[in-house]
C-alpha cells in the first residue's frame, strides 16, 4: 500500500452518464501498486484539487478502472481528466468482497445507482469461472434510464445468458420499456435457493438496508449478506477517523462488511 500517491496516466476516459465517467489508469512511471481485490478502493488524487475514495471497477495487470461521478471539486476534476493526464493513486485500501465464499452457492448481486462499479469485478470474476457458481443474478436499480452505467456491459451480460440481469428505474422516460419500481422488488422476483445463497449489496445506505431486509424475507441467512459502506474515507489507513462508524473505521475495517455485523450501527442516527 502506497502512503504517497503514485502517478497514473489516464489511458482512456468514457462517458457513462451526463455526470459519470469511467477512467482507465495506467502506471505513469516505474512504481506500481499491489493488486486490488474486488471491493477495495483507491484514493484518487486530482492534483491541485484533492483526493477522493473511489472503488476499483476493474483491473488488468497494473491497469486500474474506476467509475467516478462528478459530485464535488475533486470528482469534477477527476471526471475532467483527459487521456494523457496524470492523477495520483494510493491503495489498495479496505476489505474485499468474499469471493471464496461464493463458490458453489447461488449469488445475488444487488446494485443501486453508482453501486454497480464496485460489484463489476465480482461479476467479471464469476463470468471468468462460471461453473464454480450456482444461479447468479445481477439486480440493478437506478433513478432514471439516463443514470444507468455500463449500458453496453448490461446488454452483453444479459444476452450472454450466463447470469440473470434485471434492471429497474424509479422514474422512466418515454424510451424505457423495462421494469419501473424500487430495486427491492427485483429481489422478490429473482430466482435463487435462499438457503444456499450469498448476496452482495452496494448502493445508497438506505437502499442496502431495505434490500437486506428483502433478502432476509426471502430466507437468505443474515450471515450471507454483505454490503459495501461509504463513510467519508479520507486517509485510507484508519488514522484520521473521518470514516468512523461506531467501533469500525470503514476505510480499513470496511468498506465490505457482513451486514449483520453493522445492522445495528446503521440504525443509529448519530453515527
Amino acid at each position, binding site marked *: 500500500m502506497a502512503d504517497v500517491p503514485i502517478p497514473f496516466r489516464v489511458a482512456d476516459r468514457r462517458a457513462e452518464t451526463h455526470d459519470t465517467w469511467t477512467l482507465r489508469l495506467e502506471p505513469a512511471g516505474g512504481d506500481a501498486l499491489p493488486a486490488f481485490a474486488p471491493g477495495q478502493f483507491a484514493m484518487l488524487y486530482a492534483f491541485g484539487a484533492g483526493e477522493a475514495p473511489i472503488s476499483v471497477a476493474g483491473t488488468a495487470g497494473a491497469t486500474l478502472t474506476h467509475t467516478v461521478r462528478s459530485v464535488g471539486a475533486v470528482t469534477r476534476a477527476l471526471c475532467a481528466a483527459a487521456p494523457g493526464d496524470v492523477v495520483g493513486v494510493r491503495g489498495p485500501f479496505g476489505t474485499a468482497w468474499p469471493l471464496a465464499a461464493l463458490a458453489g452457492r447461488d449469488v445475488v448481486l444487488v446494485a443501486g*445507482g453508482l453501486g454497480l462499479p464496485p460489484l463489476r469485478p465480482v461479476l467479471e470474476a464469476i463470468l471468468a469461472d462460471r461453473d464454480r457458481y450456482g444461479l447468479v443474478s445481477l439486480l440493478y436499480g437506478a433513478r432514471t434510464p439516463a443514470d444507468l452505467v455500463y449500458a453496453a456491459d448490461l446488454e452483453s451480460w444479459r444476452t450472454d445468458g450466463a447470469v440473470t440481469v434485471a434492471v429497474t428505474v424509479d422514474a422512466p422516460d418515454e424510451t*424505457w420499456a423495462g421494469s*419501473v419500481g*424500487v430495486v*427491492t422488488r427485483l429481489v422478490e422476483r429473482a430466482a435463487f435457493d435462499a438457503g444456499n445463497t450469498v448476496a452482495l449489496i452496494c448502493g445508497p445506505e438506505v437502499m442496502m438496508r431495505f434490500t437486506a431486509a428483502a433478502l432476509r424475507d426471502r430466507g437468505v441467512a443474515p450471515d450471507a449478506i454483505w454490503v459495501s459502506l461509504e463513510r467519508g474515507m479520507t486517509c485510507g489507513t484508519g488514522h484520521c477517523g473521518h470514516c468512523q462508524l461506531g467501533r469500525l473505521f470503514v476505510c480499513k475495517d470496511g468498506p465490505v462488511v457482513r451486514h449483520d455485523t453493522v445492522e445495528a450501527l446503521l440504525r443509529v442516527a448519530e453515527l
Partner: protein
Amino acid sequence: MLRRGTVAIETHVPGRGPVRLETLHDGDVLGWSWLVPPYRTSFDARALRTTRVVSVDGACLRARCETDPALGYALLRLLAAVWVSRLEDARLRLLDMYGKGPHG
C-alpha cells in the same frame, strides 16, 4: 392477480402523455379500487406483453366478505401486505435515494 406477464400502472399527464409509475409482474396484485368506496379506479393499467390474469368480480367478492368475515379478514390480511409493500416502495422513491450521495 397477474399469473404471467407485465403490466404498467400509468396515468395521463397533460403535455407528457401516459406516465409510467410502476410495473407489475408475475404474482402481483393489480387494483383494489373494487374494495374501497366509491369503487373508482385511480390509475390506468397497460399490458406491456402478453399477460395472463385471474380477474375477480369485485361486487361479488365484497358480498362474500360481508357474509363470511373469516374470508374477509383473510383477504384483507393478504391485501394489507400488498399495500404495505407498495407504500414502502413509494416512500423509498420519495427519498430519491440515488441522488448525489456517495453511491447514488
